[in-house]
C-alpha cells in the first residue's frame, strides 16, 4: 500500500482518478492549486487506486494523504 501525500498546502482543483482505477507510474491522480500554479500529483508507482481521500475544492495540508494505492 502506498499513500500519496500533498507536497504542499493548497486546494484540490481536479480529481482525475477514482477508486478501483488502474494507474501507471507517473500518471496524474489529481491537480492541486497553490501559489498561482496547477500542481499535478502523480502516482509514485503503478497500481490500483484503493481510496481517494479528498474532494475537489477541499484545502489540504502539506503531508496530508490524498490517495491510497495498492
Amino acid at each position, binding site marked *: 500500500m502506498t499513500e500519496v501525500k500533498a507536497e504542499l498546502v493548497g486546494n484540490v482543483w481536479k480529481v482525475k482518478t477514482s477508486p478501483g482505477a488502474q494507474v501507471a507510474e507517473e500518471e496524474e491522480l489529481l491537480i492541486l492549486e497553490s*501559489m*498561482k*500554479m496547477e500542481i499535478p500529483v502523480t502516482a509514485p508507482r503503478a497500481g490500483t487506486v484503493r481510496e481517494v481521500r479528498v474532494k475537489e475544492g477541499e484545502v489540504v495540508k502539506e503531508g496530508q494523504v490524498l490517495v491510497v494505492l495498492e
Partner: protein
Amino acid sequence: MNDDFDARVADLKARRQRNLAMGGEEKIAKQHERGKLTARERIDLLFDAGTFVELGLLAQNRDGSDTAPADGVVTGHGDVDGRQVWVIAYDFTVMAGSMGAVGEQFKAARVRELALRYRKPIVWLLDSAGARIQEASGSTFAGTGWLFADQVVMSGVIPQVAAMLGPCAAGTAYIPGLADFVPMVKGTSSMALGGARLVKAATGEEVTDHDMGGSQVHCYESGVGDNEVANDADCIATVRRFLSYLPSSNTEATPVVETGDPADRPVEGLDKIVPANPRAAYDVRRVIRAVFDGESWFEVKPAWAKNIVIGFARAGGQAVGIVANQPMHKGGVLDSDAADKAARFIRMCDAFNVPLVYLMDVPGFMVGSQVEKDGIIRHGAKMLYATAEATVPKVTVIMRKAYGAGYYVMNGKGYQPDTIVAWPFAEISVMGPEGAVNIIFNKQVEASDNPEATRAELVAKIRESINPYLAAGWAMIDDVIDPAETRRVIVKSLEQARDKKIDRPWRKHGNIPV
C-alpha cells in the same frame, strides 16, 4: 655482482608486493561479493591510464606489524582528463578500511597538504568503518580531528569530492559533510554520525547502517548526498564528470571544451515544452537540454528539493552552473530545502569561477504557517545572500513567472546580473493580481454592490500591468527576447562578462545566515 644490493632490491619488491596485495585474496573476494571494487581498482577507474603515482605504499600498522598493508588507505595522485587530482582511497579489505594513526596522521594528511600546496582537486573514495577504535578509544582522541579543519581551509580553494562507496560512520561522515560533491552508490554506501552499533548503545534504537544513512535517505530526504549512482564504476565516472566542469583551483578559469554545438543555434521546440497556460506545469530540464550544448547537462542533487533544479552544462563550450525553477514539482515554488540547495550550489560556482545562468519561472517563496515554522526566512536569506554575493558572470532569463522575493533570489535586476532578459509572456510582479486586489482594494471590493464583479474588474486591470514591456520600457531589464534566441543571448552574455571584476569593501568575511 653485488649480492647485498640485489637482495635489498628484492626485499623492496617483496615489501611492495605484500602491500599491493591489500587485505589478501579472501578479503578481496568478499569485497567483490558485496558488489564493490577494491580501492586500487577504483583508482584505476578514476585516473587516466598509467598516471597514478602512489605515496606511502610501504606504510604499515603503527605497531610495526604487517597486519595493515599500506595502513588501510591508498594515497597519491594521478590525472583526470590530463589534469592532476589527489586521492585518498580507503581499503575496506584491510581492517574494514578503518582509519589508523599512520594512514590518517601521515598518509591522508600528506595528500591534503600537497593537494593544497599545488592547488589541485582532492577526491576521497570512502569505504571505511571509521576510526580504528583499537587505536583511538582513549583520551589521545584529544589530538585528532584536524582533517576537518584542513577541509575548511581548502573550501573554495580546491574542489573536494567525497565519493561514497561503502560505509562512512561516525565523525568521518563530516568528510562528505564538508565536500563540494558527494555521489553515493545505491545499496552499498552509507553515512551517519553514529553507526548502527553505536546508536544501539547510545539510544537503544535498532536500525541498520543502510536504513539510517543509505542513498535513499541522503540523496532523497536529508540532502547530504548529491547524486545516487548504481555502482562503483558509475560513481567514479560521475566524479570524473563533475571535475570536468571545474577548474583545478579558485585561481584558474573553468575549462572550455569544444562541443561542436553552434553558439548562435536557434532553440527549437520551446513552444512544445512550455505551456501557454501560465498556471500549467512542465519539466524545466527539457528547456535546459534544448538550450545548452549537446549532451552537456549534468544535474546535481536531482532527487532532493526537486522544486529547484541545479547542475552544470556548457554554453558554446563554456562551463556554466544552472539554477532553474522546476514548475513540475510544487509548481516551482521556493521553500527552505530549495533555497538551501540553490544557495550552496551558487556559492560553489562563485568560489570556482563558474558563471551562473538563472532560468526563472517562480511563483514566489512558499507562504503559510508551516514554512514559517521551518524557518523559511532564514533559509530563503541564504539564497538571497549567495546570489548577491556571487561575482562570477550572472545571466538571468525570465521565462515566465517572476514573483516577489523569488524574483530577487533568482538574480533579479538588483543582484547585478550581467544580462537580464525576459520572454514575451514573462510575469514580473511583487505578487499575482488576485493577491494584490485582496490587499490594495479590499475595502473597495467590500463596499461594492457587486463585490465579485468589482474584484474581477480590478484583477483584470492589475493583470494588464504585469507584462515585460513595462519593465523593458523602464530599461530595468535589458531586453525581451524570442525564446528561440535564448541560447545565443546566454553565450553572448558570457563573452560580454568574461573580464568581469567586482571590488567590494574589505571585510574578514560576511555573516551568511545558516
